[in-house]
């Protein structure tokens, strides 16, 4: 079994494509990782796992960014503004943060399989994932401009195998065609790129 993490996959995608636009949460993770205080990181993890509520989410965010430099704080706030366009209340933001961390711990093997299987298909331009409600949403962006039934058959076979191998996990797969576009930003700002050709 390949032992890798969600962040490792992000980093691999980044290495493949230096223009890769890292998502807010990945940015948040990078900020956290770059902080020197292990104690602070531990407190953050405990807070995320045990005590974030709808009422204290904003205080939690303020506490979270308080040790950061001015530049990092600005980056975080700008990204947060983007995120709040889609996750517009404290409850959904809390779910997003908790859900994201759950994905990191639980699903690295699945994400690796998704990258390995779908990455073999020439028309797959990039793959984005996000945790939404109780499922993992996987968006496989295709470099086609016209519907290709044979290609979709192949992709659905791969999808079925993943679903069968991880039958306790709920998924939603999407296959948006993007044509020859090199555009990397995605309609869901919280989605993370795990593969880019």
């Amino acid at each position, binding site marked *: 079994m390949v032992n890798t993490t969600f962040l490792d996959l992000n980093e691999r995608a980044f290495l493949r494509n230096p223009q890769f636009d890292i998502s807010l949460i990945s940015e948040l993770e990078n900020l956290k990782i770059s902080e020197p205080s292990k104690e602070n990181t531990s407190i953050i993890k405990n807070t995320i796992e045990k005590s974030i509520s709808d009422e204290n989410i904003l205080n939690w965010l303020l506490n979270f960014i308080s040790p950061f430099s001015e530049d990092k704080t600005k980056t975080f706030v700008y990204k947060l503004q983007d995120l709040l366009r889609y996750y517009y209340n404290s409850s959904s933001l809390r779910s997003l943060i908790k859900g994201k961390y759950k994905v990191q711990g639980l699903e690295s093997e699945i994400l690796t399989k998704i990258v390995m299987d779908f990455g073999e298909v020439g028309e797959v331009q990039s793959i984005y994932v996000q945790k939404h409600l109780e499922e993992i949403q996987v968006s496989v962006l295709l470099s086609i401009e016209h519907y290709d039934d044979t290609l979709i058959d192949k992709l659905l*076979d791969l999808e079925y195998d993943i679903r069968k191998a991880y039958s306790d996990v709920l998924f939603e797969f999407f296959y*948006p065609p993007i044509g020859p*576009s090199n555009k990397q930003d995605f309609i869901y700002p919280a989605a993370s790129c795990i593969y880019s050709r």
Partner: protein
Amino acid sequence: MANSSVHLSQARHNEEVADRLISDPPYHDWAITAGFYAAIHYFESWLFNKPEQHSETSRPKNPNGSLPSVHAWRLHLIQQKLTPEAFKSYEKLKVSSENARYLDFPNALANFTAFDYFTPTEAEKLVRKNLGVFKGELNIQ
């Protein structure tokens, strides 16, 4: 919640809409969406006689009370209860209908329309073949 016969009537109605749109390009792209919503109701009609009865009400709650989306849970049920061919037929209608509806969304990545992306012939094949396989699996004529 609707019972089996109500779902079946709605499914047949949606399939008739799909049939009409297939033969009326350039609106053939909407036939795929009508076909997908026919498939949903055919499945819900079949599921009504199973222990789950409805996709929506059989969704499992996790300890914090949150639920999966109905679409994701329905797909899970289809994959668990039906053959791989039936799953693929349903999923092909689902993902194609999403592309047919959302290609022109703001911030969408594509630079072409759904009625160009799917030819009338492909739309017809998508709806007729996949709905046929799916209905066959559910023993619906």
